[in-house]
Structures are given as C-alpha cells and as structure tokens.
C-alpha cells in the first residue's frame, strides 16, 4: 500500500532523495530550492541516509563536486534554482559531455535581472541545449514521481545522461498538496543499485576521464552524445511503464487533456497546466471543443508525437513562461512550431509569453487565450502571433 501524505514540492523531492539514498549530494542553497538540501541535510544528520553531503561554496562548485563524485562511481544528486543553475552553466555542459548520470532538481525561478526570486522558466529553458534531459512537473506528485524515474533514465546504459527534474518555484515547491509516496523498500528496488561500467575508484581498471579532445575526435564524441539523447526517448517510456506497474500513475512524453477532438488547444508546461485544465473544462461545459497538451519531456523533444497529437487542431496557443528574445516568441513556441512544420501544416499557431517574474497566471488569462483561438477559428484572422498575456499596457 502506498503512503498518503501532505507535502510541499520541496519536501516531496527531499523525501524522494531520502528514499533513493544517493552516495553523494553536493548543493548550495538558493531560493526557492533551498529547502531541498536543508531537509536532506537533516536526513543525513539523523542517520536516515548514508549519503556524503558536500556543503560547497557555490553552485559552480556544487556541479563540479557532482561531476567528480559521479565520475568516481557515486550516484550523485543536487538541487538548485535560477542564478544557481546559471552559475552551474559551464559544468552542466561538462556533466552531459562526460556522460555522467547526475540528477538535479530544478525549482524554476526567474533568472535575474531585473532582480526577482519568483517563478518562471527562464532558468531551465536557458539550459535546454546543455545536453541534460529535462522533465517538467505540474504537481508535487509529478515532481516526486519524475525524480524517481529520473534515476532509472539517467543511469540506463543506452543513455548515461544527466537529468533535470523541474517544478515551479513557490507555486509547487512551497504549496502543500496531497501526495502518494512509495514505501522506502519499493523505491530502493525501483531505482536499483548504481553500477557504472567504468569509474575512477575502480582500482582494477585505472582510467582517464575528461582528457583533451581535439578536432580529430571531439566531433565523434558529440555525435555519440546526441545518440544518447535519441535513445533516451525509448528509455523514458520504459521507465514510465515500470513506474505505472508499481503505482498506477501513467506518464508519457506529454499529457493530452480533452485533446482528441479539440478544435482549439493550448500547449503549456508545469503548474499553469492545472489552471488551464480548469478553464478547458469550463469551455467544454459550454460546448466548446477546447483541449490542452502539457509537455512533460522537453529534452529530448517529442516532435513527431506532438505533431501527431495536434494535427487535427485548428488553432493553437503555445505558452512560454520564458522569453528567448528572438523577437518572434519563446523556446516552447519555437520547438512546437518546428515540430508541426511539414507534419501538421495549416494550424494557426500563436505563441504567448506569460507569467514572467512570478506574475500570477489567472484562469481569466487562460480564458482570454482560448477566446483568441476561437476568434481565429471563426474569422480566419490570426494577426500578430507573438503575444504577451497578463502584462499591463
């Protein structure tokens, strides 16, 4: 029997980490993810885990320590937010290029400036091309479930890539929700033991990690790394299937909500999907065929599957809680439009920037987006496709 609890998103992540009992955690506190290493260090002090907790002096050091520990052969985890993730930047690319299956809980927060500590997705979206797998979570339950699956995905022999599990800062990280936890022994069995083929502490096979990689070979290594990301698609589904057998909770690349017969739809990530579902339900009650696609897996990006899921939609709004300053929209918008090209042409696509710097996303805002889509379906007039919602002026 699973355990019914009430936990905040940060508590849920800390509990998952306690149950995983990693060999090493190296972390530096930053709002809103601070509570994760704080709770976890209590588990360490209480002797509830056997983890070596490394209290580092910065996030650059946190990721460096994670890289060293994982290369040594230790299962390693960390957590951060916003500028903390930005300070890890250099090392994020090195972790993925060295094929080290580190797991990181990213509690999404606006990347300064202007100085702001509230939620948007500019931190993890900025790291989208760093070679990390990215899973996003609508709720505390999803954050917990994604982190348990992340271990299986990262350490799979066909993948060996680091995984970032994202949830919305304050909105999910600090709000207490009902949650179903697995028993400790079931988690232990599900994640299994970390058994790398090659690691620095193996005295029977001395190895060199991170050597100079000049033009004769670096390109081949990058191609191999790209293949790992391609392979991850299959592995992520396999891990989800096994997790479903254990918990009854189903995970895929994305969640389709009222989408199969939808004429208008929204693509969205993380907690605002909950708000959007409420609005979609209300519109359905009024006979409007409104649907929603919530992306769980952003890296690798499920382009073919998204095109298939959206091919019958007439008008679509892709919601971005991050700017990319391309003067044409945000990162999710760019990926979704690219996915549709040549596979589901003819769909009218808007790209909205919303909720930057922690601006509340209200049901009214989402309803306004759906109303714009209805107007496009009715009139065929699309107008400006790069839009902001919820901003004054």
């Amino acid at each position: 029997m699973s355990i019914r609890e009430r936990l905040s998103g940060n508590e849920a992540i800390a509990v998952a980490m306690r149950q995983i009992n990693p060999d090493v955690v190296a972390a530096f506190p930053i709002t809103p993810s601070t509570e994760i290493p704080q709770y976890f260090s209590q588990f360490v002090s209480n002797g509830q885990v056997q983890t070596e907790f490394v209290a580092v002096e910065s996030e650059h050091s946190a990721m460096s320590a994670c890289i060293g520990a994982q290369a040594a052969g230790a299962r390693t985890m960390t957590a951060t937010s916003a500028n903390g993730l930005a300070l890890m930047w250099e090392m994020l690319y090195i972790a993925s290029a060295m094929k080290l299956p580190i797991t990181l809980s990213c509690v999404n927060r606006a990347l300064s400036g202007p100085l702001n500590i509230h939620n948007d997705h500019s931190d993890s979206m900025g790291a989208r091309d760093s070679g990390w797998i990215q899973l996003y979570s609508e709720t505390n339950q999803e954050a917990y479930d994604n982190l348990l699956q992340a271990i299986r995905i990262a350490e799979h022999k066909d993948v060996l890539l680091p995984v970032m599990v994202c949830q919305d800062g304050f909105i999910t990280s600090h709000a207490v929700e009902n949650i179903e936890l697995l028993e400790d022994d079931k988690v232990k069995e599900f994640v299994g033991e970390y058994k790398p083929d090659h690691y620095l502490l193996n005295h029977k096979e001395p190895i060199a990690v991170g050597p100079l990689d000049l033009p004769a070979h670096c390109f081949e290594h990058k191609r191999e790394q790209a293949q790992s990301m391609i392979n991850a698609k299959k592995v992520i589904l396999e891990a989800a299937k096994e997790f479903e057998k254990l918990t009854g909770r189903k995970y895929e690349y994305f969640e389709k909500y009222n989408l199969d017969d939808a004429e208008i739809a929204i693509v969205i990530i993380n907690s605002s999907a909950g708000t959007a579902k409420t609005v979609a339900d209300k519109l359905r009650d009024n006979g409007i065929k409104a649907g929603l696609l919530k992306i769980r897996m952003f890296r690798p990006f499920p382009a073919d599957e998204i095109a298939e899921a959206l091919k019958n939609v007439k008008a679509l709004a892709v919601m971005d809680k991050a700017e990319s300053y391309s003067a044409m929209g945000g990162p999710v918008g760019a990926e979704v439009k690219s996915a549709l090209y040549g596979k589901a042409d003819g769909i009218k696509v808007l790209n909205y920037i919303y909720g930057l710097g922690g601006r509340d996303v209200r049901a009214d805002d989402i309803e306004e987006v759906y109303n714009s889509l209805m107007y496009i379906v009715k009139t065929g007039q699309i107008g400006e496709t790069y839009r902001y919602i919820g901003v004054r002026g």
Partner: protein
Amino acid sequence: MRGKAKEMTPEVTWQEITPGGTIYETGNAEGYKTGDWRSMRPIWIEEKCTQCMLCPPVCPDTAIPVKDSKRLDFDYDHCKGCGVCFKVCPFDAIDFIKEEDKEE
C-alpha cells in the same frame, strides 16, 4: 568499442569511440608530445649544476627526468618552455633562450 589511447586513431567512428572521451587506461599524457608548443627553450648547463634537485619537482610537465637521484637533460618531447625551472635554479645552471636561437 575502442578504449585505449592507441586505438583512438583518426579513423575511429562515433559508434566505436568511448562515451564522454574516457580512456580506459592511464598515463596517456606521455604519448602526447607537446614539445612543439615551445617558443622558449631551457638549456641545462651541466658543469654549473650542483644536483640540488630544486628543478625537477617544479616542472609542470615532468620534463626533467631523474635517475639515481640525479637529474638528466631535458625531455624536449614534452617540455613546453614555461621557464619555471630557469626561475628556480639558484646556480644559473639553466639558461632560457628563444627556440629559434638554439644551436643545431
């Protein structure tokens, strides 16, 4: 899968190359000759050398071989010409010249 440094030929394909660039053996730097990076060249003046042993441990490239507690001539295959040995020598037993000024 090719895992040893000598197997990393210019022909190795991405399917055969080791993930992450890891080499499944150590001591690989010896096989990579960095002497041609040098623009300055240290010259050991054996008659002034007292074998005080200050220079071998400061060499970042282990390019001052030591045998039977005595230093030998520079390993020019690996010396990058940083000049640290020249700075540390108290007996002017190491000269430091431009690479192009060396006597053939």
